[in-house]
């Protein structure tokens, strides 16, 4: 398939360049699921499990079925041919973990803000953060069962987003859906940074 001596020892190989995409959003919105859906390696994380004691600290009304949460961050990896490796970082949504955000957002290609229509306000801090920082981002509404469906335009309005910020529906458990969100984000990041998107992209087809 690929020509050339692919079995060269690591030390003789040129190191690829790593790029990263941040997945942010509120508590229990599906960040961990999305990272796990697309990662080629077992997602790694540093985690502290929140139990009943966290009720009142981390409000889980509306997401009662979620018993634990990730309070650190998790990350997955996708190898892109030889030159690049893409890392996905699911960042803690709670503001008390903001000390980690700058480190994770620095040098990011872009960000996905995951939203849950049952608790839309949970993603306000993430939206604010990336707007302020100038990181290209899109909003992906994770479609939970039992959640009321809203019009994308309604969500755009509710989040007070500019027309330039794409909003889309997704299913964090579906590989195809996550792929589409990631591709749309990369296209949006290109546009934001003044690079002409490829003419054969679906939006122009």
């Amino acid at each position: 398939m690929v020509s050339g001596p692919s079995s060269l020892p690591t030390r003789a190989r040129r190191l690829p360049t790593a790029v990263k995409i941040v997945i942010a959003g509120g508590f229990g919105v599906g960040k961990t699921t999305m990272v796990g859906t697309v990662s080629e390696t077992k997602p790694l994380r540093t985690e502290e499990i929140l139990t009943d004691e966290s009720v009142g600290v981390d409000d889980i009304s509306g997401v009662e079925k979620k018993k634990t949460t990730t309070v650190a961050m998790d990350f997955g990896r996708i190898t892109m041919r030889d030159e690049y490796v893409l890392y996905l970082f699911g960042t803690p949504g709670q503001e008390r973990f903001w000390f980690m955000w700058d480190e994770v957002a620095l040098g990011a290609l872009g960000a996905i803000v995951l939203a849950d229509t049952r608790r839309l306000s949970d993603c306000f801090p993430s939206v604010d953060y990336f707007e302020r920082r100038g990181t290209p981002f899109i909003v992906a509404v994770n479609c939970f069962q039992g959640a009321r469906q809203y019009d994308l335009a309604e969500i755009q309005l509710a989040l007070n987003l500019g027309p330039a910020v794409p909003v889309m529906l997704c299913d964090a458990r579906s590989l195809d859906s996550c792929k589409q969100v990631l591709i749309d984000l990369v296209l949006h990041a290109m546009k934001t940074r003044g690079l002409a998107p490829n003419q054969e992209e679906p939006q122009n087809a």
Partner: protein
Amino acid sequence: MMPPEEPGHDRWQDDADPVQDRWHDEHSGPMVRPYVMTSGRIEPTRGKFDLITLVVSVGAEPDGAVGLGPEHVAIARLCQSVMSVAELTGHLNLPIATVRVLLGDLLDQGFISMQEPEPEADMHDIRLYKAVIDGLRAL
């Protein structure tokens, strides 16, 4: 009762955690505190080590090298294949600041080489975006 998320964990093999297994006591937690591993240092002597800086081992294993401990050796072993600082942190279950100091030591003594990520200001290379889109489509 179990969380319904975490799909397909069987896709990935469980990897052993050599340092952690030996130095973790069920009741009292880690027996070696992170600052002991770094001899109290909080900054690496060399390198910034971003979360996605890629690291790979070069040359011989640092077994028995002066001033290096079991955690250094564990890092060098993990880096037999190219690995990011974030992944090392996850595999070793150590704080990132600790891993950075240990990586600085390894870099100092020539046991690893590394590739820093593109700075944000340089994100105007269209090849990068195309490679990422192609890679995503191939998933």
